[in-house]
């Protein structure tokens, strides 16, 4: 009986703490956004474009069996507003006609280019250049079975001081690169990486790989993900970045200083969450060397990506994300509570362990003890009901806060009806979506413990010529 009481008390404190931390992050994110708005309200992007001192960027596009979309994706990337751009497409042993499609579109020819494998990768079979488009470089490499290896090959071939990793099936807004680089220009000596926001593409109108009209998707499973993405990026990442504790920059869109990525050995091959893993290793290296640095997040530069539309794909994706989380946390467990890793070791990593990795386990145990306590009459039913209501209200408050942040920052959903829909879904997100997320994450833990590091396929509707999702 005492165990059950104690367990319930711990659960209550845990839940309260998790929500309070998120509330704190929300307040920080709102403050930071207001400050950012005031600071950069007069910042002119065209000045960056016109400046001869704007550093070049290499966009790395890992592509595996992307014959359907690769030409339009590369075309859109080459159209981005940035004065000095290089696009490196890495064909990761595709079994389809990815390279042939590019060859056809850009008249690729084998090039004699110095390629030094500073980061070890699977063999590069050929390097192509386009006579029509000198900014394009295509690497054809043997498949290594992981995205990280393809990105590493791209980093080896990159000639710019900054690299930006982009998914071949995602869409960058035209000004995304300039906006994200503004984060570097603020303090080029210290800023080593900047993450941009990734948003849900489903439902929006897309023409020629450019967003024409932003709209909310129709199905509830997709709208729930819109809220989740807003909460994760606008509240979580913005909040952590404020204290230079950003633990992750999304693999779909982020820029990194090339030399530093090479110093840490590039993306870890066969890591399930290679993006998270890289950022943690960057923190580790820079903290160990006592170098002043900042890993930043900016909400304005936007990358649009397609999210799962069916429950099975979503379940696989969430299980994989959780495997990626464990896969990055476990090898870096020695950073926990070590003075040399500063606030990363004392705050953000313990948070990730306790409130992200272990969250589904603690929730499951909590549900079990609460039910048991109710059955045995140890738990006051009034208290239990109030506790559930409190959890519901608090989580809704945080979700609505992220919608407010969306309104305050880039305000992509212009129509008030869309905002009303978002706010309404904030009320219904908690059941059954969240408990299901818990189950998928538990599955991820189970799969990881069994040694299953597979990515799992995601069924994509695809970006059609007109509408996505």
């Amino acid at each position, binding site marked *: 009986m005492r165990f059950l009481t104690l367990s319930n008390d711990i659960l209550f404190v845990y839940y309260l703490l998790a929500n309070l931390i998120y509330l704190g992050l929300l307040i920080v994110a709102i403050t930071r956004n207001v*400050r950012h708005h*005031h*600071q950069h*309200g*007069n910042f002119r992007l065209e*000045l960056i474009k016109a*400046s*001869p*001192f704007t550093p070049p960027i290499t966009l790395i596009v890992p592509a595996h069996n992307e014959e359907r979309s690769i030409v339009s994706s590369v075309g859109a990337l080459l159209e981005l507003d940035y004065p000095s751009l290089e696009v490196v497409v890495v064909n990761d042993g595709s079994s389809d006609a990815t390279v042939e499609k590019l060859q056809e579109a850009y008249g690729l*020819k*084998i*090039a*004699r*280019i*110095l*390629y*030094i*494998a500073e980061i070890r*990768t*699977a*063999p*590069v*079979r*050929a*390097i192509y*250049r386009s*006579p029509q488009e*000198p900014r394009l470089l295509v*690497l*054809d*490499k*043997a498949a290594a079975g992981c995205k990280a290896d393809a990105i590493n*090959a791209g980093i*080896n071939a990159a000639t710019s001081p900054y690299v930006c990793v982009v998914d071949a099936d995602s869409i960058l807004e035209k000004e995304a690169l300039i906006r994200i680089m503004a984060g570097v*220009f*603020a*303090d*080029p*000596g210290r800023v080593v990486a900047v993450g941009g926001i990734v948003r849900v593409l489903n439902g929006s109108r897309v023409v020629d790989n450019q967003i024409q009209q932003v709209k909310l998707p129709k199905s509830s499973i997709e709208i729930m993900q819109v809220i989740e993405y807003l909460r994760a990026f606008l509240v979580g990442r913005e909040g952590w970045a404020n204290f230079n504790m950003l633990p992750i920059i999304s693999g779909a869109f982020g820029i990194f200083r090339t030399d530093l990525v090479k110093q840490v050995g590039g993306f870890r091959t066969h890591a399930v969450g290679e993006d998270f893993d890289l950022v943690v290793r960057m923190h580790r290296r820079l903290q160990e060397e006592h170098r002043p640095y900042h890993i930043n997040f900016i909400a304005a530069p936007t990358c649009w990506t397609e999210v799962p539309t069916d429950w099975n794909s979503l379940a696989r994706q969430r299980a994989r994300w959780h495997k990626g989380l464990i896969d990055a946390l476990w090898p870096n467990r020695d950073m926990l509570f070590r003075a040399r890793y500063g606030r990363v070791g004392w705050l953000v990593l313990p948070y990730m362990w306790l409130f992200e990795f272990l969250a589904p386990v603690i929730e499951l145990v909590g549900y079990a003890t609460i039910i048991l306590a109710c059955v045995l009459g140890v738990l*006051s039913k*009034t*208290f239990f009901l*109030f*506790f559930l*209501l*409190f959890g519901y*209200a*608090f989580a*809704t*408050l945080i979700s*609505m*806060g992220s*919608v*407010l942040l969306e*309104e305050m920052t880039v305000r992509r959903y212009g129509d*008030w009806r869309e*905002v009303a829909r978002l*706010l309404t879904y904030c009320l219904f997100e908690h059941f059954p979506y969240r408990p299901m997320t818990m189950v998928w994450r538990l599955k991820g833990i189970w799969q990881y413990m069994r040694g299953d590091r597979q990515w799992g396929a995601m069924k994509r509707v695809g970006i059609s010529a007109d509408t996505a999702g």
Partner: protein
Amino acid sequence: MGSVFKAIARSGPAGLVLGAILVSLLGIFLLVGFIVFRRWYRARYFRRRNERTVILRARWNDIVSGKVAPEEWCFEPLDAEIVGSILLDNIEVSTAESLPLLLECLRKSGLLDMLIYQARTARSWRQRAALLALGRTRAKEAIPALAAGLDSKSAETRVTVVRALGRTGIPEAAIPILDRIVEGRLDAPERSMKNSIANCCRNNPRILISYLDQTQGPARELLARVLAEVASAELGDELLVLAADALPEVRASAARALGSTNTPYTLPALHSLATDPEWFVRLRAVVALGQIENVDKIGVLLRSLCDANRHVRQRAAWALARMEPQLEQILQDVVATKDNYALQAFISELERSGAIEKIISGLSGSGQHSAPAALREVVEGARKSVEMSGKAMAAAAGH
């Protein structure tokens, strides 16, 4: 009767949770209310602003010329804001002829004085916004107020001031920045400083020369880098002096600057820089040579094509491959160097530029100008070699 909170506290843990629920619910209502209010307020504000903009735009010429007295609009905050922003936008794209009239309007209406006052007295983001707006005015009297901000304790304010001074585009605005660089007491991001100095000195790069003479080390490299971007033919002999500077960065910048000049001394100077001991100086010289329209550069570029550094060879090949009328002769000269690296680099560039097929057909043609069979074989061999080495290098590098 006690307060609600006292009642909750008396009711134990459940009461506390109930209190938390109430606070959360209140938060939700406040958030939704704020979002709705913000949407309504913004819609109303922009509707009003658009209406006023249309009215003010209709009278724009009279406002600028002073026929509409400033008192008619400058005491109305929304109107003053609209006129101010239109004026600043117009000033940014104004020509030398239209600028004085716009500045006159800014001065007579008191908007300029107001901005100077805000830049001097406001704090935090308000001050930074005023400083940036002041920079956009391109008015000379803004410079002292801006210069004062360079000594601010706030790093953000200093960066804003550096940017604002750059926005003026006036050569005099560079002087406060340059003075502080020389004295080593300006702590601001290098890129912002370079951009601002370049913007200000674009029409008068000579200012930089005198400051270059007073600086050493990294500050000198910074100024040299800016000079490379803004240098013009009028700098004359001074560029030659820089081309002989002890600092390689300065020599590289001089090489870059020489690329935008076309004087009798340009080619000899670049010729000399193309044999510099530092590879990046040679590279800059070769890139600059590529920009110059002069067939006499072929000899220098041919020598650079045999350079020990791969980047220099590639840029030389790039420059040579774009000299279309002379390509056949250049190809023969490249073959005559008997340098396989040079030949590969050149053939590779011809492949990229698409000129190779034309040359091959030219070599295969019959008649007295057709190339000897030996040359054709060398070129075909080099083409195959380029393709093979491309594959081999990639494969070797991947392992």
